[in-house]
């Protein structure tokens, strides 16, 4: 199954582009599912249909669903949710608000991944298109399996440390309901059992992200940072979609003369920033693109020369190569700020920090026991050298990249 995720700054037309891709692919005979992952769903608004958490037939070969954290939580996480609801009711909080509260942060991203993974396995689709939330949430979504693993590691240790000793005592002291072992079991099974599958889904060569931009300064700036972050986490991007280019008639309007001039420069800038990825373009429409027919037409314009479900471009990914006396790890980080980079090694992982982001890169087993001997960053490539552990230390901190 091919999985395409669309992201970009808010308001650039992610939902429209995702829906147009799906409508176009379905029209060309691919069995397609489109999924909305943005908690503030607008996929239904664009398709002019009310959508739910189960796939809804929209057209021949085209289904749509809006991931619903509430429903996923009830299905997969029943006991946890029941417990939370019971707890909140116990506190005399209005039941209405309690249900809203049961949706803890992170639940939306998890719900989306679970839905995509399940549909991918059982739905028999050729293509799943995901309309993601704005950039930051998308990264949270894509790194969730890894992040959840570390969170769970800490949480379970905490639970083991505190609750298992304290709970029996606490139960006697107070009347409030406390989670029992079954609740923690559910959390553990849900996370450990399915996380591995989710991780495999995201790492698959059939999964790519497409960045959507408009010719606006702030939009391009954010996409550039998102691109660096996606590379840091080794998530494949295969294309950039540049939306809302002024059509010729609109360029003639005096009011838009400056926009037209700037647009030309921005287009060249986008092509060079994201090279070698192809830049697909779509014009500004004189009407909002709503409804299936409009979406299909928009998709045909976007994918005139290529197939919507093809992997449209490839960028270098992380590479491990043996060299004299050790190994070399190369991580492409386009547009990263040298000053914000930091590399260290902890246990079997290489910890790479780029600005506010931090990635724990799991090393192949034969490299796991090596020590960090140095790191440098040049021409958008982070190069890390690993050597056999010396007598000095098993773990070495390398300061900011030299």
């Amino acid at each position, binding site marked *: 199954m091919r999985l395409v995720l669309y992201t970009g700054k808010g308001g650039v037309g992610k939902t429209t582009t995702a829906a147009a891709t799906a409508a176009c692919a379905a029209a060309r005979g691919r069995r397609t599912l489109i999924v909305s992952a*943005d908690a503030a769903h*607008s996929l239904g608004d664009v398709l002019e249909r009310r959508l739910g958490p189960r796939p809804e037939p929209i057209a021949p070969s085209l289904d749509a669903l809006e991931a619903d954290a509430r429903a996923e939580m009830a299905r997969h996480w029943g006991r946890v949710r029941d417990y939370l609801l019971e707890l909140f009711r116990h506190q005399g909080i209005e039941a209405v608000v309690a249900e809203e509260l049961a949706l803890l942060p992170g639940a939306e991203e998890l719900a989306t991944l679970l839905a995509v993974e399940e549909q991918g396995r059982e739905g028999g689709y050729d293509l799943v298109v995901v309309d993601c939330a704005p950039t930051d949430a998308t990264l949270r979504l894509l790194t969730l399996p890894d992040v959840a693993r570390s969170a769970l590691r800490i949480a379970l*240790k905490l639970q083991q440390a*505190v609750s298992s000793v304290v709970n029996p005592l606490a139960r006697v002291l107070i009347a409030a309901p406390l989670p029992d072992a079954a609740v923690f079991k559910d959390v553990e099974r849900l996370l450990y059992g399915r996380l591995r599958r989710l991780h495999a889904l995201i790492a698959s060569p059939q999964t790519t992200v497409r960045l959507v931009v408009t010719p606006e300064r702030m939009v391009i700036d954010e996409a550039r940072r998102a691109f660096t972050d996606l590379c840091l986490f080794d998530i494949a991007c295969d294309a950039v979609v540049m939306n809302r280019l002024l059509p010729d008639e609109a360029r003639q*309007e005096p009011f838009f003369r400056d926009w037209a001039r700037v647009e030309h420069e921005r287009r060249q800038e986008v092509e060079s920033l994201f090279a070698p990825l192809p830049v697909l373009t779509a014009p500004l429409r004189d009407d909002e693109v709503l409804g299936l027919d409009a979406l299909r037409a928009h998709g045909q314009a976007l994918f005139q020369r290529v197939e919507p479900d093809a992997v449209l471009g490839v960028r270098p990914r992380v590479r491990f190569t043996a060299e004299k006396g050790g190994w070399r790890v190369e991580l492409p980080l386009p547009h990263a700020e040298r000053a914000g980079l930091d590399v260290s090694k902890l246990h079997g992982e290489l910890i790479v920090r780029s600005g506010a982001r931090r990635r724990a890169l799991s090393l192949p087993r034969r490299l796991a026991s090596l020590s960090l001997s140095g790191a440098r960053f040049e021409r958008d490539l982070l190069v890390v050298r690993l050597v056999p552990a010396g007598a000095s230390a098993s773990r070495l901190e390398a300061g900011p990249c030299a």
Partner: protein
Amino acid sequence: MRVILLTGKGGVGKTSLALATALGAAAHGHRAFVLSTDPAHSLGDALGFPIGPQPRTVCPGVTAQEVGALEELERSWSAIQGWLRGLLHEKTDELVAEELLVFPGLEELMALRAVREVEARGEYDVCVVDCAPTGATLRMLRFPDVLRIFMENFFEIERRGARWLRPVIGRLGGSKLVPQEEFFEAFEHLYREIEDVRQILLDGDRTTARLVLNPARVVVEETRRSFAYLSLYGVSTDAVIVNRELPPRAAGGWFARWAEKERQEQAEIVASFPVPILHAPLHPKELIGVESLRRLGEEVYGSLDPAAVLAAGRPVRLRKDARGTVLEIELPNASKEDVDVGVHGAELHVRVRDAQRRISLPDSLVGRTVASARLEGGVLAVIFEA
């Protein structure tokens, strides 16, 4: 200190308008602070020079800061970190703050703390918060409630338990497992800070939200839902700002059809938001830099003081009583004969004479039966069966 939350669908111009609001407030003599809590910060992009996790002067009277969750965590919470470090890594000195960031909710937490810190400094009259897009903002606003429940239920218990167990476990050689008293103190301190923020956010005299939107169908739809949810969480909305309207001189030729669509949405906006509606036109150039943003502020607010509370009260409220869940809607000047109420799918339609308002219902009320509706003292109460 006045707090103004600017939120709305992604890409509508929240950041530009947050800066324009602060610059406008400064022109009225207020000392203004702009705080970005959107993890994808763009204050620097809009100003044309970088703003970071440290407060930075934008121009006389305006200071700006982009909250960095990682920096905030490293600065505070040393006791909690210390304990976790002991628990997880035993001998290493790995930065636990970074690992802690994986917990969902921590970014929201740090954003809330930052609001309180601006207030605690006592140097500012107004704090304009450039929020993340609506979904994340709503999550931030309900975070204090989640934390309060956690504290009331678990915290004291665990603390009492730890006090009692520490000597016992200590003798068994497992003292690292039971948190030290400082851990609980640090946590309690943090909780008090967040409680303070909750008080600030729910005080309609101090805190109001302003919803930014564009005159486009999908944007208006999402903003209507946000408006309902803000009311539900107890935050008053005191204005709606319609950004990037086609000005008359741009509305001809190729854009005529576009302009016509916008007119329809403008009518929809008036019907949907019972608060002052402010306007900002589309410009022939991108608005980047202090001067452009200052002029934008003048266009939006005119002679109004941007720091003022532009509309009082919460026009839509939700509460629970013996009869079920009650949705209350302010309908001043309406009489019983004028009002007609009906549920359509996920919306409550309220018709007052010729004007119809469509209020998005919270998910938990969708599909429930309306038991009754009554109008008393200018308030329409719609009762949903439990």
